């Protein structure tokens, strides 16, 4: 082996070592959660990198709780509604911001971006008053409202950028064909914006699905909770026991839908995130 081949070989090894390190760093915590979920509570604190046996008792336990199943249903209702509302408002707003010339358009866009920079805690008390005033306390509708506030800026921003890249002549062709703005949006732009919609919709879904602070603050009873709160409030046999096994099992259960969604939409996400980077 010549020294050139050797150095090439060493470089390749170094590259794959680096990849392995990154994957380990990213995946290990989740992996550990998964194997923990399959351990019976007696073995919980024995460190094992490969589970010696699969024990499904943790899963049996969480699925036997009516409140957990109710929380999953609530989460689905909230997340799907947030995605639907955010995309509907986002598309129409991005048409106005991307296509209609009006005074103060860039100011509006900057305000929208600015809003998304506030930490949740900063608006928590104010939003609580709003929710109370609207009589939405302890109601999934209150969560939908508050998540939409935080999802919309991102959705509008991304969709506006995408909308601006669609050729002007396409819209004018639709106008010449007699299309109203609504018909132009739904019949001409929407079919072309699926990648962007899939990206923003999925990110909105993940945000709504995983949100904890608002969900904890704006709900009171088990029947109205969403999954992250329900997991955090899982209680063990006594006040002194944290039920790690069921918590891990529940976490795995609620993460799986996200992973499946990402896999389904991954190609579209990539094309959505890189759209406009290269002309094509």
């Amino acid at each position, binding site marked *: 082996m010549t020294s050139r081949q050797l150095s090439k070989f060493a470089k390749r090894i170094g590259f794959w070592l680096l990849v392995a390190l990154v994957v380990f760093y990213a995946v290990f915590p989740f992996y550990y959660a998964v194997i923990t979920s399959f351990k019976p509570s007696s073995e919980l604190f024995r460190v094992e990198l490969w589970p010696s046996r699969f024990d499904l008792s943790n899963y049996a336990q969480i699925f036997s709780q009516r409140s957990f199943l109710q929380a999953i249903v609530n989460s689905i209702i909230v997340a799907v509604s947030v995605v639907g509302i955010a995309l509907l408002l986002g598309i129409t707003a991005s048409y106005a911001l991307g296509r209609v010339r009006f005074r103060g358009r860039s100011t509006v866009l900057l305000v929208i971006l600015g809003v998304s920079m506030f930490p949740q805690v900063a608006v928590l008390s104010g939003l609580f008053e709003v929710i109370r005033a609207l009589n939405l306390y302890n109601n999934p509708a209150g969560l939908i409202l508050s998540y939409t506030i935080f999802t919309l800026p991102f959705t509008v921003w991304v969709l506006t950028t995408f909308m601006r890249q669609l*050729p002007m*002549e*396409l819209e*004018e*062709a*639709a*106008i*010449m*064909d*007699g*299309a109203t703005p609504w*018909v132009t949006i739904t*019949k*001409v732009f929407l*079919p*072309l914006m699926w990648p962007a919609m899939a990206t923003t919709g999925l990110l909105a879904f993940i945000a709504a699905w995983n949100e904890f602070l608002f969900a904890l603050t704006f709900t009171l009873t088990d029947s109205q909770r969403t999954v992250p709160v329900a997991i955090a409030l899982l209680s063990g046999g006594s006040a002194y026991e944290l039920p790690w096994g069921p918590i891990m099992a529940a976490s795995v259960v609620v993460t799986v839908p996200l992973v499946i969604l990402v896999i389904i939409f991954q190609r579209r996400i990539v094309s959505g995130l890189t759209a406009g980077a290269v002309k094509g």
Partner: protein
Amino acid sequence: MASVTLDKINKVFGSTHIIKDVDLEIGNGEFVVFVGPSGCGKSTLLRLIAGLESISDGELCIGDSVVNELPPRERGVGMVFQSYALYPHMTVYENMAFGLKLAKTAKQTVHERVMATARILQLEELLERKPKALSGGQRQRVAMGRAMAREPRILLFDEPLSNLDASLRVQMRNEIARLHQRLASTMIYVTHDQVEAMTLADKIVVLNAGRIEQVGSPHELYQRPATKFVAGFIGSPTMNFLPAELVSGSADGCRVTSAGIGELALPQDASGHGGGAALTLGVRPEHLRLAEASGDNAFEIVNVEYLGNEVYVYLEPKAGDTLLIHRSEAPSAWRVGQQVALAPDPEHVHLFDADDRALGLAQPRAAA
């Protein structure tokens, strides 16, 4: 089919005045071409007629009615865009049917019209394809089909051939011309290419900086340009311009003198100008005759271009540096370095005054 009348049309964008007092009559069934350099307002004028831009001032009539306030769909106009702007997610059939469906046309009628249009444009084989599976020329035809399917009274073309390569452009130009003969509908066509304008138009409208420079048939514009701008814009290679001075002039003709050419007796009416007035002399490359010569007034041949069927000879005057071009049929005996004198044919010399307006002829002359 309809006529179009523009009456003192103006368009102002913010502080820029793009279209200035344009008056124009377009007859029923005419093929009119708007031509001019980029930024002259020709596309804006077309978009004003289409209804994609609002008219700042003036009146636009299509047929007998004023359409200033009507949206595009109610004006009965169809438009072909430069980038085609086909709907990428629809098939060729759906692209052409889109406007008809939006107009709530009966399904059967939609089908008949789309099929009829496809037959005219030879698109029948392609109806199920998406635009991305079409060649440039096919996309071009679909774009025309989409504009035609709704049977508009006027068809508008915005530089439709500029995205095609040279040979396809000639072919599509030919197809558009034959389409016009066949449909006999009113067409308005925008281009910056004077060859397209000359070959397609019944009537050319030359625009410059938002104003109409001249309206006329291709023949009129070539033979009798009304301004120096039109003279320089129409024709390739462009007309030669030489500074000249009026020696004497009357209503019956005039005598001018120009460095390098000497004194010429010309048939233009120069009665409005005094002796010594500065004029510009214009001669097309094919109307310049060369003779071997020497002396102070001679021109030197600096380059000879052989194009197969014709030869361009580039001439440099002793004084000044504007190159002149002479065109003749191939073969040519002229060689680089030769000294020549110019003898323009007085019948084909144009004179422009200090405001760049052409001087009219003293008496009617035989058609050139």
